[in-house]
């Protein structure tokens, strides 16, 4: 718990020190995290969360081998890696275009910051669909500049924001044991892996290669999965 607090302070300090980073995005991200912690993992939250991460990552040149966020109390004095593991093959196609759109119009598909904040509030406070519709029907907010006027159009905007929706297709299969056919649902495990490893929110906390960490006294340090032997032995 204590470590977590220190680490989140580190993260905030990083955010402040980075000049190019839009500060509002960090705020949004923090808020999302807080609100979501109390609640069930809802799809709506995921959408905004992912989108914020996308914007957040635009100016973030992350180093793949960077372990500065690792919650190790005694920092390792030295480490070894297997050369050429975890080396990237190339850039992700279409990513710069995506970023360009985001930089040009950070609030897309919403029309303004105000618009986005309202949508964000709707989602985070879990306003019911009927209440959202009632909000517009009763004319509580000015609808002139709104890019969405109902729960349905809001939903459509959120769908646009989530580029990973395709990974979450449920497959249906049925197993027949001779007497009964039982239906069950599953997801493609490869797609799930793709989704997790692509998730920009985790970009500073993903490792791609095993390392061996050593203390000043020469003792081996074990902290995370990638610092232990199993990964090292398996990696060819």
């Amino acid at each position, binding site marked *: 718990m204590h470590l977590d607090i220190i680490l989140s302070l580190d993260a905030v300090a990083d955010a402040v020190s980075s000049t190019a980073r839009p500060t509002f995005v960090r705020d949004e991200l923090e808020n999302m*995290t807080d609100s*979501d912690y109390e609640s069930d*993992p809802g799809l709506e939250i995921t959408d905004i969360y992912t989108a914020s991460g996308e914007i957040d990552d635009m100016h973030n040149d992350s180093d793949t081998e960077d372990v500065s966020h690792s919650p190790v109390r005694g920092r390792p004095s030295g480490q070894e890696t297997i050369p050429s593991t975890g080396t990237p093959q*190339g850039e*992700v196609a279409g990513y710069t275009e995506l970023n360009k759109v985001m930089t040009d119009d950070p609030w897309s598909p919403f029309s303004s910051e105000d618009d986005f904040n309202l949508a964000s509030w709707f989602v985070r406070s879990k306003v019911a669909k009927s209440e959202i519709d009632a909000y517009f029907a009763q004319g509580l907010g000015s609808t002139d500049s709104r890019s969405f006027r109902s729960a349905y159009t809001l939903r459509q905007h959120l769908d646009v924001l989530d580029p990973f929706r395709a990974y979450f297709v449920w497959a249906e299969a049925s197993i027949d044991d001779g007497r*009964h056919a039982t239906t069950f649902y599953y*997801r493609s*495990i490869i797609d799930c892996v793709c989704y997790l*490893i692509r998730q920009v929110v985790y*970009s500073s906390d993903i490792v791609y290669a095993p390392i061996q960490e050593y203390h000043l006294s020469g003792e081996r340090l074990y902290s995370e999965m990638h610092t232990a032997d199993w990964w090292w032995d398996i990696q060819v």
Partner: protein
Amino acid sequence: MVPIIGLSDQTDLTNFSGDKKACPVYMTIGNILSWIRNSPAKMPILLLALLPVPPKFTGESACANEAQRQTNVDTLQAVFDLILAPLQPVAQEGMAMDCADDKTRLCFPILSAWIADHAEHAALQGIGSKSCPKCEVP
């Protein structure tokens, strides 16, 4: 390399007569550092499948009926065959995946760990409930 960590447990949905049970299977990957991976707020654990709970055919419980028990075990194995089948060629040959830092890497997803309680391990591996899933004690 992408180590996959699987999780599963049987859980009760209702506590009334005619209890409903669900067997969710979750997965996550070992590349994410553990303080992120274990944080529910970051949602790094995905629901992979909902296992079918085989209906009872006879009045007897599954423990008493040998054929029923065998059917249940076979069903479970077949389901896991289906879920994990796409992993096999990819784990051997590798697959170029887009990574979080906007680079593409050749990834080898390997099922590396399975987090479950003893009853679940025993069911998954088809051993007696009093056997050890790790060593050779019968």
